[in-house]
């Protein structure tokens, strides 16, 4: 195995494009090194992108925020502006692993690992986040939900690297929230999860909403029916119950060591309604 | 002569006996006589039998004396964590 630490995106893309055998991108390493340890992947080349200019920065742009792909979730959590604008995204990112893992892991790594249970992804999908991709063919931007195509698989092509995640500026009266279910209080992978982002008008009526579920299908689910139920409501109890039902109905989970189909289906709805209530309350505060 | 009570499975191995009267002054003699009189108990003795004398369990000490009026109970030698 070869270890490279390029200082520019061009160099990194060149290394990946020119690689023979298996190449892997290293940012936080909290998935990659575990896979290497278990012998699930034996890369011939590891490209550490942390020394590339700008990749460890959170930038506020005219449209919103650009989060560099080597920004650790701990750094993300320390960003006051981001916490204020996208509390749901930040709390989701801060749920990944322990303090130790927080010091290393990144949301881009979380997206590219393509696990259906990734914590940050439902929140990012609900937030309408986009991935900025650099590759041998230039730059492109796609919605976050289009990155993972199946468990462990992404739409990135050979030599492509996500350099940043883009989040919009928030209109007033907006809020988001993310909730996951884990058996312990920490250190677990989500059994099922839900992210909700919404904007309300002056009267408290939901104008727009996005609802996403994690670990409820092979990839993160954007539940449009749930958003339709929320829009036009004041997130009252009856609406939230309908939302929960819609979310449960949309689930296509599996039975595995972390949970059953019945459990995930039921709890997806419970979490979605609770996250929606939190997002709605947050929207009302701003 | 002491009266020795056997635990369930040991009693079954001894032909359904629950209690045995045996002339033995200590644990060593008890095991020897048990093996002589009840050959089917030998595998159990080899695997390890503990002797409870008035509620105190002896796992190893052969020399322990068996008082005439004592409450003597045989148990399998236990494992612990």
């Amino acid at each position, binding site marked *: 195995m070869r270890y490279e630490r390029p200082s520019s995106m061009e160099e990194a893309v060149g290394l990946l494009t020119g690689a023979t055998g298996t190449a892997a991108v290293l940012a936080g390493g909290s998935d990659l090194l575990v896979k290497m340890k278990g012998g699930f992947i034996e890369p011939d080349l590891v490209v550490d992108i942390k020394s590339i200019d700008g990749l460890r920065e959170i930038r506020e742009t005219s449209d919103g925020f650009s989060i560099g792909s080597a920004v650790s979730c701990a750094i993300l959590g320390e960003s006051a502006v981001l916490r204020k604008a996208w509390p749901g995204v930040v709390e989701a990112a801060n749920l990944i692993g322990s303090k130790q*893992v927080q010091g290393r892991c990144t949301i881009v790594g979380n997206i590219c690992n393509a696990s259906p249970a990734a914590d940050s992804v439902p929140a990012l999908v609900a937030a309408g986040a986009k991935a900025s991709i650099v590759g041998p063919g230039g730059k492109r931007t796609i919605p976050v939900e289009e990155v993972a195509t199946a468990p462990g698989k992404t739409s990135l092509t050979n030599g492509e690297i996500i350099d940043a995640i883009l989040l919009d500026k928030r209109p007033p009266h907006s809020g988001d929230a993310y909730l996951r279910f884990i058996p312990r209080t920490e250190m677990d992978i989500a059994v099922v999860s839900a992210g909700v982002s919404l904007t309300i008008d002056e009267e408290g009526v939901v104008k727009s909403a996005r609802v996403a579920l994690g670990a409820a299908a092979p990839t993160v689910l954007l539940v449009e029916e749930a958003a339709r139920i929320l829009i036009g409501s004041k997130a009252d109890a009856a609406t939230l119950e309908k939302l929960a039902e819609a979310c449960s109905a949309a689930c296509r989970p599996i039975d595995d060591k972390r949970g059953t189909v019945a459990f995930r289906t039921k709890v997806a709805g419970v979490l979605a309604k609770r996250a929606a209530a939190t997002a709605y309350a947050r929207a009302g505060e701003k | 002569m002491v009266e020795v009570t056997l635990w369930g499975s040991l009693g079954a191995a001894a032909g359904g006996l629950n209690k045995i009267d045996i002339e033995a002054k200590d644990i060593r003699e008890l095991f020897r006589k048990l093996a002589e009189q009840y050959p089917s108990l030998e595998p159990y003795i080899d695997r390890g039998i503990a002797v409870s004398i008035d509620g105190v369990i002896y796992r190893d000490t052969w020399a322990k004396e068996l008082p005439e009026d004592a409450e003597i109970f045989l148990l399998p030698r236990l494992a612990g964590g």
Partner: protein
Amino acid sequence: MAGVAVTTTINGDEVEFLCQPDETLLDVLRDRLGLTGAKEGCGTGDCGACSVILDDRLVCSCLVLGAEAQGRQVETVEGMARGDKLHPLQQKFLEHAALQCGICTPGFLIAAKDLLAKNPDPTEEEIRFGLAGNLCRCTGYDKIVRAVQDAATVMKGA
């Protein structure tokens, strides 16, 4: 596999080593540098026994490549005491009987040091969540939490 030459700072001392590109920082510390205070309990970032501080960030050294330490600052349990004077956390762990087998102790000490550096006056809940990445199987955590609370009090007064 060609070795990678690394220059780094460990517990304030500049250190140079040669490691395999896929070798973890934990393996480097333990097998190449003789710093066996960090322990391998799982190798997958789930137990925290290998915790070290890397440039002011608490990390599992089993999830860091040795090569990544180039030009950075590494702090391990071996660097906590000053000469023969124990760090307040070390002292309080002893006084509160906060260790039984002690295998998790170096990781807890490092994690607690990082916690108190960022939050000198944590609540019990903040301590519990702050140390959730470190597994202890002997103590039930009770005495560990108390030791950290006590150390925080002492360190605030210092």
